[in-house]
Structures are given as structure tokens and as C-alpha cells.
């Protein structure tokens, strides 16, 4: 096991986890419609990344499991969406949303750093396959980060300054 193996493993784990986290956030914030829909779109990128990492890993005698078959949280989903609908009429879930966006951002940032490491290792060893993989995937990871950052920036002013006011 060398550094490239280690990085591919970390990325595989990180992209799988991010896909799952995006889908979970999409469901938890079902009543935040933009979050719900865009998180699904962005989860697809992480899914593709996991597939590509797994394919690439085979060339390094590394057997990774690939994307999860059921990254979405399953039958409980409907129940949680219903729960989201019920609490969706209160301001407090806004704070939970900001926390989730922060966690998604940090998860994407971790992946981004691993892509950076992989790209550097690829350049140092003139490994075109790895470099191509990193060049294809890393920009989308950065876009995932910019999205969470933008949503936090746009939503924070309202969500952080209004909780606790106007209770009946």
C-alpha cells in the first residue's frame, strides 16, 4: 500500500460518504426545494466520481467496492420527508439546514484536498491516467463547495437573525 493507494481509498470513502450525505440532506430538507433538487444533482457527481475511482483503482491492484447500490436512506425516506413537511413551517429547521450545509461543505473540502494530493502525485509520477481522473473530477468537487458556500451566504442573514422572534 503506497500513498496513491491510500489517497484513492480516502477519495473513494469520501465521495461515497458525500453522495450519501447529499441525498440525506435532500430528504431532510425536503421543504427547502432548491436544496432538495440541487443536492440530488450534486449527489450524482459524487456517484460518478466513486465509479471512476473504482475503475482506476483496478489498475493499481486496489479493489474498491464502488458506489453504494442504495445510497438513498431507503424506506424511512418517506417518513422523514413527512417529518420535514411538518416541521417545515417553523424557523428552527433553518439552523439545522445551515449545519447540514456546513457539514457538506467540509466533506467536499476534504475530497477536494484529496483530489489535489492525487493530482500532485500523478504529476510527480507522470501518471496520465490518474491525472486525467483528477482533472475530470476535481472541478466538480470545487463546484459542490461553491454551492454550499453560496447557499450558506444567501440563507444565513435570514435564518440566523430571525429564530426566536415572532413566536405566537
Amino acid at each position, binding site marked *: 500500500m503506497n500513498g496513491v493507494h491510500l489517497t484513492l481509498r480516502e477519495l473513494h470513502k469520501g465521495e461515497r460518504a458525500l453522495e450519501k450525505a447529499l441525498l440525506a440532506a435532500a430528504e431532510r430538507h425536503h421543504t427547502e426545494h432548491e436544496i432538495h433538487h*440541487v443536492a440530488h444533482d*450534486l449527489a450524482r457527481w459524487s456517484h460518478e466520481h466513486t465509479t471512476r475511482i473504482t475503475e482506476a483503482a483496478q489498475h493499481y491492484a486496489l479493489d474498491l467496492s464502488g458506489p453504494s447500490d442504495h445510497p438513498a436512506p431507503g424506506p424511512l425516506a418517506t417518513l422523514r420527508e413527512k417529518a420535514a413537511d411538518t416541521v417545515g*413551517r417553523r424557523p428552527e429547521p433553518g439552523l439545522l439546514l445551515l449545519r447540514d450545509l456546513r457539514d457538506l461543505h467540509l466533506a467536499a473540502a476534504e475530497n477536494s484536498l484529496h483530489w489535489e494530493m492525487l493530482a500532485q502525485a500523478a504529476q510527480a509520477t507522470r501518471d496520465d491516467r490518474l491525472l486525467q481522473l483528477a482533472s475530470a473530477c476535481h472541478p466538480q468537487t470545487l463546484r459542490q463547495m461553491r454551492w454550499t458556500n453560496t447557499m450558506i451566504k444567501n440563507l444565513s442573514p435570514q435564518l440566523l437573525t430571525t*429564530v426566536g422572534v415572532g413566536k405566537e
Partner: protein
Amino acid sequence: MNATGDRIANPWGERTPYEPGSAWAARTDVRLREGVGEDEVERWVPSASLLHSNGDAMDIAVHGGRIAGVRGRAVDRVNRGRLGPKDLYGWQAGASPDRLTRPMVREGGRLVECDWEHAMGRVVARTKELLEEQGPSAIGFYTTGQLFLEEYYTLAVIARAGIGTHHLDGNTRLCTSTAAEALKETFGCDGQPGSYDDVDHADVIALFGHNMAETQPVLWMRVLDRLEGAAPPRLVCVDPRPTPVARRAAVHLAPRAGTNVALLNALLHEIIRSDRVDHDFVAAHTVGYEELAARVEECTPRWAADVCDVPAAAIEAAAEHLGTAERLLSTVLQGVYQSHQATAAAVQVNNLHLIRGMLGRPGAGVLQMNGQPSAENTRECGADGDLPGFRNWQNDEHVADLARIWNVTPDTIPHYAPPTHAMQMFRYAEQGTLRMLWITGTNPAVSLPELSRIRSVLTDERLFTVVQDLFPTETAQLADVVLPAAAWGEKTGTLTNADRTVHLCDKAVEPPGEARSDLDILLEFAARMDFRDQDDRPLIRWTDAESAFEAWKRCSAGRPCDYTGITYDRLRAGSGIQWPCTDRAPEGTERLYTDGITWAHPDTCESYGKDLVTGASVEPVEYRSLNPDGKAVIKAAEYLPPHEDTTPDFPLQLTTGRTLYHFHTRTKTGRVPELNAAAPEVWAELSAAEAADHGLAEGDLVEVATPRGAVRARLRVTAIRDGMVFLPFHYGYWDTPEGNHPADDKAGRAANETTITDWDPVSKQPLFKTAAARITLVEHGDGTPAPAPTVTASAPVQEGVSGR
């Protein structure tokens, strides 16, 4: 005096054929009240259409103190005297007996009439209470695309500098925000590049999701006149419905809903593959070409054929027309703007023009169209989620400039995040953090998606709603305070159409009862709130429409939408003038970008752009390094599958749209006898094959259902693409016993009972044209056809189906 004839049955009138480069002849359309002759008209008052975005100039006939009809103005550059059916008949709406004539406030659950003092007192008291308790974030304004420039500008100053809230947007969010966003993404700034005059010169006209025949009938008359003349243009039409445009097209592509980006990427692929690229133009005026070329490399017509369900050969044929055009005019509307990946698709049309060098010369232009008559003004005045004068909220210099004009400190104007868009405002209201919503001239209880949700927000006791309108609309019925407003013809102001033409609408008659102009109402609110500038003088010092216009001119100076060369006198003496109109361009400006891209520089641009998939903002530093010289930005986009796709339970794609005879939620057109009779009741459209599969026939009563709700309608069998059901969105409940909602446990009449709450992450425009539905039989018809128009996109396939 109605020489113009029956323009319900013959909406586009007689032809005046012409050839490329020659002038479009005048044809004066007139319609007057029965018994009034043209020579008996006491006054003709200058005005322009307020029932669509074309900006057709007309004069209002006044007889006996009442509006007695309209006459198209032959000298005007936009319509050369022509009028569409909504204008020829629509002027009657203002005289409807059920106009709101007194303010109303909610008392014990009921709306009761009161005087202005009481109603305004209540609005002001609640505003002050909320400012005290929570601050500006509690207060939001939801306006329209149907007021005048002077009213939007006043509203923008009240909201941004008076209250200091982020929450001001227009229903233009539903109709035109993608047009604005696409222009910002490509050209760094809003502003229509092309001109209607381009129709006179084009050899290919491509209409993307734009049923021009019904949305801008006078512009379509112009195209029809070209089609009948020598050297007619070739039309390329992208539309899933058999529109009048599709029937005249050389190539008609009817893609699956939600696949516009795939289709456009394939068209761009073909242009690049066949090297119909203007490389000199690309090098001189753009950045980003390589990224686009790489992005569309794999997007072959064969690939897109599978995604879009259109023949690859048809895509190739369309690309051949686009690629060989010498003067290409493209127009874009709701089929793109209200569909999945709205901005990404609209931007690809801009890209088509950039890579072909089709910009800034006669016949070569882009028209990112508007839906509503004064949507352009909502945008430029900053009443739509932008800062006034196309200023950039991320650029501190722009905010400081605005603060200087208003004589306030820059931190008075919220600019730490983008202005809140309408869908987000309703979300904040749903959460209970936005607690007052002042709605001017629009009807969200019918026009927003997923109406059961919208009704629950509007009726939530935590939300104080003020509704300012002409009629007791569905929304007004749910309000806490209702303010009666003056209508078109009863007040003065300007409006600007989709090709930047500014028209003056003068007051012709008095408003009924105690109704007041929207401007007066807003000015009184500002006075009662006692908004002050930093020298403790009143923040708003204008007192009427003309002085508001002069104030706006100062705000527009030096920006792309520069009005400084326009005066009320000039507009009265002549007719429409296209902005920018300045000392240097006193006659106005026909086309933008005739000599390079002018408003994309990092220091002057309105926006640094967004990610076309995620909507994430591009940061200033990033933009500066990408586009240091302010060229047009070619932005590529990948195709994403629609968010709501068909399933075995909901096997049909649902799309909603409009008909020629109605506007918005029928508030006016439903009260005009001729227009109402032309399309009196909601209907549903299905193809013949799809109808047969479902065991359905013309005139059957059906239910169209989605996970959100259902609509009950008579079925019209048309040549719409298979697998799709269409519902017109105009119909609501004001003329039903329930008044503002469907009968309990029954399917509704409003298409938006069924639509999904989803919006384009870039432009924030709701998606009314990408959802999944099922259709079921309620009862077979008795052979009577559906109550749908027959000369438009809803034309029946079955011969012998009559009606209008």
C-alpha cells in the same frame, strides 16, 4: 367603427407582405365601442399595450368620460399601427362592474370596506411594529410585470433604502428572470441585444420555446408578412406543441420536456463539427470557446435524438439552417425559461450567436423575450431581485454609486447577499420569518406552483398580507388589507417592451370610486413612514409620475439602460424610443453590441455570473481572471435529467402554458366578453395516439393529476407530441362559487394545483413545464368539443370540430 373585423376568429388580420431590407408597411387596427364613430371620439390619449410584452403603441379613444376603444399608432416602430386581439378587446376590462373601489381590511375573519386613512393606518402600524420587533427581514414586497416604471422605481427605493429589506421581487420571476440571467451570464449585464427590426432582415429565424403567434401576435404578424413576401426567411421552431409557428417552420423539433440543453448542445456540436464558426468574431469578442467545443464534442445528434426523442436527421436539418444563415435571428421564451435547466439552455442560444458571429447587425440578433408588458422595467428598476440600473450587488462601487444617488449611506442598502427571489420569500413566509408581504398587481394564489401550499402560506395567521389590485382576485380575497388601484388608462407612467422601446401611457379617464394609482399609494406609504435620507430630508421627493421618471433618469445615467435623453414631452410628441437614449444617441439605440461587448468588464458588469448547474455565485476575483477585458462569456453546460421524470403511476409529461386570448390569471381578459368567449374554460391537450391509448376522445371530461393535486378539464385532441399533456394556466376561481380555491375534495381548475415547486437554481424561475402526471376519464363527453380555441396551438386534429 370596427373595420378591423373579427379578430377572435382571425387574430393576425390581413397580410402586408414585404421583402428583406424594405420597410414594414403600416396597417392601422381600430376597435371602438358599438355606436361610437372615429370622428366622434373626443380625445385620443397615447398609450401602449399592457396585456403582453410586445409594447404595441396605441391611442385610447375617450368618449363621454369613458374609454371607448383603441387605435394602433401607425408611426410607432414596434407595431406600425397593428394590434393583437387582447388589445383590441381588452380595454373594456377597466369598466367591469366588480372593480375594487374602496379599501378593505380584515375584521373578524371578513374583509370589510373602510376609508384610506384606516387602511393605510393599519399597513403603516404593522410595518412599524415589525421593524421594531424583528427588523427589515420581516417585510417583503412581491410586485409584478404590469405596473409602470415610475412605480417600480419608487417601490425599489422604499424597499431597499426606506425599509432596508432584501425581500423585493416581482412576478417577473415567473416570466422573465431567465431572460435577464441568460443575458447577465453571457454579456455580463442585462439588456436585450437585438431589435424587432431584425425580423425585417433575417434569413433564418429560430424560435426556441416561443409560441410567438400567441404571446406576441403583432411580432408574429411581422414574421407572417415576411413569409408572404419575396425572399422569405426560413423558420426553425423548437416546441412540443403544434403552434402556428411550428406549422410555418422549415424544421419543427418537438423534444421531450426538460431536454433543451441536450438539444442545443447537439445543435452547437453540429455547427462546430461543420466549422460554421466565425473564428474572428470568437477571437475578438469572446472567452470560453474551447470549453464549449470540448463540452459538446460528444453531443452528437444521434445522442440527443435518444435524450430528446426527436429524429437525429431533424436535428441535423435544423443545424444546417442555423449554420448556413447569413442573418440569424433567435428568439427565446417560456418553453426554455420555465423548463428544466432554464438558464443553461437560454445561454446556449446566446452561444450559438457568439460562435456564429450573429450579433449587433441588421437581422443578426438575439431576443431573449419577456413575458409581461413592463417586465423590463421591473428588471431595470431593481424591483426584481437586482439593484436599480443593472448595478452589481457584489460590487461595492456600484452600491456606493446608488447610495450617492439616494443620499443614504451604502450600508443602508442591503448588499451582503443577492436580493431575495420570490420563491424564497414564500419559503421564508412559510417558515414564519417573513411576516408581512405587500403584493402589488399580481395573483400568486393562481400563478405560483403548487397552489395548495401557496394558499396555506397566504392564509397563515402569522403573515400579514397587503394586496393592491384592480379586482377582488383570488389573492385579494385572502388578504388582510386590500387597496384598490387605478388601471391602465386611469393613471400615467412609462413602460418598456422586450426590445427596449419606451412608451408613455397617459391617463385617459378617472379611476372608479376611491381607487388610486399604484404610484400615489406607494408615495403615501413613504410619506407616512417618514423615510429620510442622510441629511434628514425626505428620501423620496418626487410627487407624480413625471417627477418620478426624472428621478429614475438620474439613477439610470451612465448605465446600459440610460434614459437621460428621454422626456415625457418627447414620448408624447413622437412615439416609442429604444434605450439607451442619451446626448450621444438622442434617437435611441436600435441594437446593442454593434461594436463589441460593452458591459461585461469586471468594473461595470451587473453580475459576475453563476454556475449553470448549481447556481453558485462566481466571485469577483474569479471573474476578473476569467474575463479581464470584458468580452462575452461563452458558458458551456452539461445536460442533466429532469428532476421529476415520468413513472408508471405518472406516465405523462405535464406542461402548462398560455393561450392567445388570455393574459396571466384572466383578471382582466376573463372580464372581456369577446376574449372570455374565445376561451371560456380550462381544457387539457393530448395527442390522438395518447388519447386512443387512454380510451379518451375530444370533449371527454378528464382529470389530470400529479402528486400535488389535480385539475378537471375537457379534453382537446391535438397534434401535441405523444406522452405529453398540456394545461393552460390562466384559470382560477374568482368566477366560481368558492372564489379562491377548488370546491372541497374536488379537482381544481387552476393548472398550478398540479405543478411542482422547483426552480432553476441559476435564474430562480419556477419550472412550470417539467413535471409528471397521469390522466384519467371522469366521464365521456356528448360529442361537444372542448372549450378550447381552434386557430391556435390548441387546434383540434379531428376535422369538423368547431368553436373558436
